[in-house]
């Protein structure tokens, strides 16, 4: 029996409400893909912003609630909060990107990822919204900086994944266009909604760069934290190791671009595959390999 997280007290009801908004926005963007109506994309964007504002309010409510029950660390540590925050970060990312570029077509991927994360948080039975007291290992001022920087990185990589898919759609379809010019009028309209492939390419690079700078900073902050909590700045904990693997994956991408001039489709594919590594690093490691970063029940872990 699935019991969704809808408690007024700890703010999870408002996250669930924001899920409805983000999902509505996703449907709007999806319709936009087929109709091409600017009006619909604008409405979807407004709905997304409304969802985002509700989520911000939910965060504030949740933080205040945590503070009231005597927990001084921000509610960011368990699986529920983590998923909700992930959705939050990629929404911000998209909103910022949307201000600089005309990226309406990206909306459906971003809102899909955001609503998937929110739905996962709301309905996944192991991700309860109840705020548990923070275990001693996480009682540190490093916590908030560590999580914030890494989530910005995760969000940026999610956006690059979306952009990579758009690029592949754009280039894949425009080839067909030349061959079957007359038949695919409908698809042409869909393609015309996407930004120019060169614009997508540049934004993939830039978004990944932002992600990589924040990933580096997040790993460094994590190391600094470990130095004051774990007996050393690097312990080869599975999460640490996977974050290094993620870092290497994107560093390779940057080098392939600079030295071999890789671009276009190759780069889009790397953006898509790189995100799979990110997802494994973010969720896979916690769910498969036990380690110091697991979102486990606090009582089952010895100390760290």
């Amino acid at each position, binding site marked *: 029996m699935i019991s969704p997280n809808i408690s007024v007290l700890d703010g999870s009801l408002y996250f669930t409400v924001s899920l409805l908004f983000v999902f509505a926005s996703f449907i709007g963007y999806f319709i936009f893909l087929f109709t091409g109506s600017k009006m619909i994309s604008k409405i979807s964007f407004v709905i997304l912003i409304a969802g985002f504002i509700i989520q911000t309010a939910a965060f504030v409510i949740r933080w205040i609630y945590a503070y009231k029950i005597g927990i001084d660390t921000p509610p960011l540590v368990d699986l529920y909060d983590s998923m909700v925050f992930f959705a939050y970060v990629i929404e911000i990312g998209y909103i910022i990107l949307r201000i600089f570029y005309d990226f309406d077509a990206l909306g459906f991927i971003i809102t899909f990822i955001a609503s998937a994360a929110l739905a996962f948080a709301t309905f996944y039975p192991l991700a309860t919204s109840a705020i548990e*007291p923070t275990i001693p290992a996480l009682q540190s001022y490093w916590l908030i900086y560590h999580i914030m920087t890494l989530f910005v990185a995760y969000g940026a990589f999610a956006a690059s994944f979306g952009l990579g898919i758009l690029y592949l759609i754009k280039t894949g379809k425009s080839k067909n266009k030349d061959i079957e010019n007359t038949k695919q009028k409908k698809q042409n309209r869909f393609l015309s909604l996407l930004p120019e492939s060169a614009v997508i390419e540049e934004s993939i690079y830039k978004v990944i760069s932002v992600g990589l700078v924040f990933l580096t900073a997040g790993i460094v902050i994590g190391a600094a934290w470990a130095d004051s909590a774990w007996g*050393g700045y690097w312990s080869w904990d599975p999460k640490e190791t996977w974050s290094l693997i993620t870092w290497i994956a994107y560093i390779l991408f940057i080098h392939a671009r600079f030295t071999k001039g890789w671009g276009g489709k190759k780069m889009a594919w790397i953006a898509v595959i790189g995100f799979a590594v990110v997802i494994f690093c973010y969720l896979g490691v916690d769910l498969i390999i036990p380690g110091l970063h697991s979102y486990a029940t606090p009582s089952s872990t010895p100390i760290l």
Partner: protein
Amino acid sequence: MLSKLNKFISSVKLAVFLFITIAVLAMIGTFINQGDTIKQYKTIFSPAAYHVLYWLGFLNIYDSWYFIALTLLLIVNLIAASINMFPRTIKAVFGPYPSFQEVSEKKNPKAVYEAIETKKKPEELKEVIGKKFGEPLYEKISENSDKAELYYSRNSIFRFSPYIAHISVIIIIIGVLLNFKYGFRSYTNIKVGKKTNVTYLLKNNKPIKLPFTIRLDRYRTTYYSDGIPKAYISTISIIEEHIRILTKNIEVNHPLTYKGITIYQASYGHYKPDKYGILIVNLRHIKSFKKIIYASAGKYYNSKINNIKFMLIRVVRKGKMPYFPYIIKLNNKKILNFRVIRVKNNNFPLIIARYKNIGFIMTPQLKTYYYSGVEISKNTYVSVVWIGCIILVISLFFSFFFNHEETWVSLSGINDAKKTKIEIISIPKKKFNSFYKKFDKKISELKKYLH
């Protein structure tokens, strides 16, 4: 031969190979538990599998010789690649810059070219073009003066940021390797009230001696109201040559550092209870004298009544209660005539011994000894790592977001200097769509001004 070797050592292919190999090895390390004891491994793997994994070094992969060798090779690769590229970068930043002629012959795929003809004079044009591209880095006017060449460069200084990023990675790796060589990470368990100066290395459980002694004065766990642990606190004293130097509480996230060695709270637990509460009763004045003494087997304890001492002796008798095999012995005279009384609804047997006016009653109270597991690390050259990390983050930012843009402008008189031909070549270091758009905008503005 040497140039071939240089080419191989500095190649991107080698870097890619090294990065991927390191990533794959790191991945293997996350799926096989690292640094467990042989006993633990033998319960997980079959003996044959264990030997293969041991031989491959997969059980301590991050300290294995090949992992370190690959890292060192990566450093060599980074240095070699940087040195090979460096002269070109120096030239691009400080000159001598290539001329318009050279650039146009080279046919760089990133280059954009534009040619405009106008009636305006070169002197006038220079000023207008300068407004678009900035201050020229050099200006060359040929002898017959109907030909002029201008060179503009933007963000050239950021060409160095990738080098700084690579150097910072080298600094980090050097710091890590120095720490690996001169530092250590170890753990030890200390009983409350006891001291130790021996600690066991995490990687192979070998004991090492510390330059000072650690005493655990106290251990306690504090809890939230719902029973979840809030803090694990050990009170630790540092003792050097029998003198207590300092005493401090350590907690998770709040370690203690002394003489470059840091002591971290890592775990806690308790030993099997070995002390039993003995209730001592003065049988003549039952109300006036009652006392519990915690006694372990084989030691004399003073009952505080007439200075009579007693001892518990372990007698192993199979199939009996664990509390049976204790005999109360006084002043080397064994008293064996103790009686066992079972109290109803209580499984715990009451054992009573009597000597003159003193009654000894074994109580169900056990004294457990807590120990605190501490990790003791010597992390040397950490500051080297931090400096490298800070430089890395900053230099990555500058390498990614600043694009070196070069522009060559050639002005030449045609039709007997009645007209001037403007030729512009612009080359970005990074092929950005936005660069070309900006270029197009500048050109269209220039054209608008000329017509």
